[in-house]
């Protein structure tokens, strides 16, 4: 279409696209702006230019003990992702490289476990956590988040592994490579990008999980999602402070997310759209 597009049309489309993009991004932008205001400014009416004070960031960190939930978020997101990868890499590997007649059924069944609504198992999981002392512990929540995301991790890895051509393996075998050489020098280098993408997407999903983290934590193991949800009425935390806490909670994952747009499509559609 580019050949037919005049400069004017291009300017028009550009203006329209930027307008829509800024409108969608506005709530995030305004939160960043408000986080740089003082509390008086924050409720003084619409204003896009803050006084650039870092007051709110300091208050949130000192008063609300922000680092505890932040550390919990990092531990839960990274921990559950690594656990999931440890279980999923061998499984996806086996299904991609020595598929059986039932491989497809197993994959579909794994997908089906992801469709179970969380609230359906709220009662038993809550009671199990209460009775085994896992309530409000990092280890309990890490395992739970691992189980929740395991089907997506297996699926994503499977779709990446499946794209590694089998002929390469045959060639390596003909050249006399052992199974160990095959895995170490042929497959691993080709599998690393897929594993990295899976890791990234899963950290994002685990970081943003907000049902189980709210149900199963109080203070000790509460990650940022549960921490922020406890400010549902801004009595303890005012506008500027709420904004600062929000910005700190979403900034790391926003940046990770920008780098993983492509993987996001693939991972969340279970490879149905690439």
């Amino acid at each position: 279409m580019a050949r037919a597009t005049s400069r004017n049309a291009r300017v028009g489309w550009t203006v329209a696209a930027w307008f829509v993009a800024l409108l969608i991004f506005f709530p995030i932008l305004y939160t960043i702006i408000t986080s740089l205001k003082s509390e008086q400014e924050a409720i003084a009416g619409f204003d896009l230019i803050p006084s650039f004070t870092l007051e709110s960031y300091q208050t949130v960190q000192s008063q609300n003990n922000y680092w505890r939930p932040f550390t919990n978020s990092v531990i839960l997101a990274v921990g559950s992702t690594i656990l999931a990868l440890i279980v999923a890499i061998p499984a996806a590997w086996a299904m991609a490289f020595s598929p059986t007649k039932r491989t497809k059924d197993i994959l579909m069944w794994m997908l089906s476990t992801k469709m179970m609504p969380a609230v359906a198992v709220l009662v038993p999981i809550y009671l199990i956590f209460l009775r085994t002392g896992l309530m409000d512990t990092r280890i309990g929540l890490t395992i739970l988040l691992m189980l929740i995301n395991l089907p997506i991790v297996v699926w994503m890895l499977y779709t990446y592994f499946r794209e590694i051509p089998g002929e390469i393996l045959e060639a390596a075998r003909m050249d006399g490579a052992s199974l160990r050489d095959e895995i170490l020098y042929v497959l691993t280098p080709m599998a690393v990008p897929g594993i990295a993408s899976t890791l990234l997407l899963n950290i994002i999903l685990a970081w943003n999980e907000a049902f189980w983290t709210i149900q199963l934590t109080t203070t000790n193991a509460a990650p940022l999602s549960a921490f922020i949800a406890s400010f549902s009425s801004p009595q303890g935390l005012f506008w500027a402070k709420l904004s600062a806490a929000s910005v700190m909670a979403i900034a790391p994952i926003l940046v990770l997310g920008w780098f993983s747009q492509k993987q996001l499509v693939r991972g969340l559609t279970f490879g149905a759209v690439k």
Partner: protein
Amino acid sequence: MATRQTQGLARLMRAPAIILLFVWMIVPLCMTLYYSFLNYNLLNPTMTSWAGWFNYQYFYTDPAFFEAIRNTLVLVLGVLLITVVGGIAIAMLIDKPIWGQGVVRILVISPFFVMPPVAALIWKNMIMHPSYGVLADVAQFFGASPVDWFAQYPLTAIILIVSWQWLPFATLILLTSLQSLDTEQMEAAEMDGAPAHSRFLYLILPHMARAITVVILIQTIFLLGIYAEILVTTNGGPGTASTNLTFLIYRAARLNFDIGGAAAGGIIAVILANIVAIFLMRVVGRNLD
């Protein structure tokens, strides 16, 4: 390489994931099913007894249950409508030859990475608050009186917030699909004098059909479980005006300590989700061959 040995190894590699997921799926679900037939309240755990179908009957006769089902459907359908129509429009806009496409993409995709409680609180306090929100400022600028979104239109407010969160997902997937459209075909249609709307109807839309289906089905699964957005904004109210099925069950279990009732609600949620799941599995399964 001995095939039997490889297959044994493959089985061993698959086993942990399969066993874990199997236990994770079957054990809690059986427990839910069992509890759903009990009179079991955590406030009075010694009085536990067999209830038969009572918990299901109780749900069925509770007006809040039907309102929750209705709210769930309105929420899912409302968000789907906004995100699919909006997603198609924005994807086509970004696909045009524009300056700064990369940055536009990043801006549009950003809301998806905002965790639900933060998204809801941003909207509740920064945007929709009747005295300090941006929308109130806009209303006052035009001389109108500000809307108290969460008191007057609680479900609409939640639909808007959730749509904002999922619009990026729909846009990104539809854009990916749009970019795989054969440009030669489009140019041929253009040269043959096909007007813009028929190119959209007969070329673009059929090409995106599959991606649209995937967007609808995947979003539905997540939208049936909307929880944090309701918790931090309306807490299900006023009354039960913004309570969906997930929130109703959460209330039964955690606020009323009614284990049996919450379990029965959970089983109903499973049945609802399964109806959607069957469709999704068909679409994804077809792609596997």
